């Protein structure tokens, strides 16, 4: 495996791990606020799910950029196409 490819796969892995950590962190914060401001606590928990849900979407965007950088335009195009398909599902 080329070094640029290893780097971009590491970036993809970072995006996936980042999404999970942010989700868990937001939930910890929400439970800390449970006794203080229940409405704010529920709001954080609600949006933490949104962060987790969009993690794969950010992953595919990262793949698109990564494939473009290493010169694999075909797979970059597929990645951006998948991104557009998912976004259009949300808009419909």
């Amino acid at each position, binding site marked *: 495996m080329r070094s640029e490819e290893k780097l971009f796969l*590491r970036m993809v892995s970072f995006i*996936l791990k980042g999404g999970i950590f942010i989700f868990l962190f937001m939930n910890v914060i929400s439970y800390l606020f449970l006794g203080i401001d229940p409405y704010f606590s529920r709001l954080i928990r609600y949006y*933490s*799910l949104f962060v987790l849900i969009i993690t794969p979407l950010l*992953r595919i965007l990262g793949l698109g950029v990564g494939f473009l950088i290493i010169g694999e335009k075909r*797979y970059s195009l*597929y*990645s951006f196409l*998948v991104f557009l398909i998912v976004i259009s*599902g949300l808009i419909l």
Partner: protein
Amino acid sequence: MDLKLYEIIYLISFGFLVGIIGSVMGIGGGAFIVPFLIIVFGLNIKKAIAVSLVSIIATSSAVASVNVERGLTNVRLGVLLEVTMTLGSIFATFIMISINPSVLQVLFAFMLLPTALSMYMGSKKREEDFIISDGGNKYYYYDPSLKKVVSYCVIKEKLAMFFSFFAGMLSGLFGLGGGLIQVPVMNLVCRVPMKVATSTSNFMIGLSSCASALILWKKGYVIPNISFFMILGVLFGSLFGMKILYRAKNSTIQFAFSVLLMITSFKMIYEVFK
């Protein structure tokens, strides 16, 4: 929805088991999560599907984050199959939203039977049966259970894309990841080794679940409390399961869970007609 302590323990424990299955077998575990939430928590099937999809995203992200770096995941094949998989997923989600919940529950229960059979058949295959190195693009990965670098080629990608559409439909319609179709398709059609097939499936199912989950989250079907504790269990199970995947064989687990799926299917059918 407020949860009691024993309900939280059930969710985390069950999520842990599902996380192990998911990471070892390349599936999201929706086939177990949805019936569990309906039978144990009495959830409406559409909300159970929404929670299942979010849990699958967690499993997929956790497992894929490790396997991508290990070189087990074929990201190129994954991206290619995701094109049709996400289309199927979105199409099926809109159908699912408009179907009567009882009808959906019966369809789900009947769908589990061929799923159980597919798992049982998969448990009879040897790990080395489908490793070839002729034709197409060559890929490599190190397999510690075989103690060697394995090379393989991917063939019949267009046919696999066709099946991926239906795998995506499973995701949107029933809250499954689609791995139950994707893993055999990659293994049998594309001639990809089993470990790469399960890793790549884990990588892909997160996105097909994301496509459906976004729609369901927008419509308010996702229950934050139940989702969080299920995801917590799933994440711990996935991390544990990844250690098993890298070193073990799948056949015993596949056999055990094919039996469990069969029992779950009959239980769900019984619940609808009771």
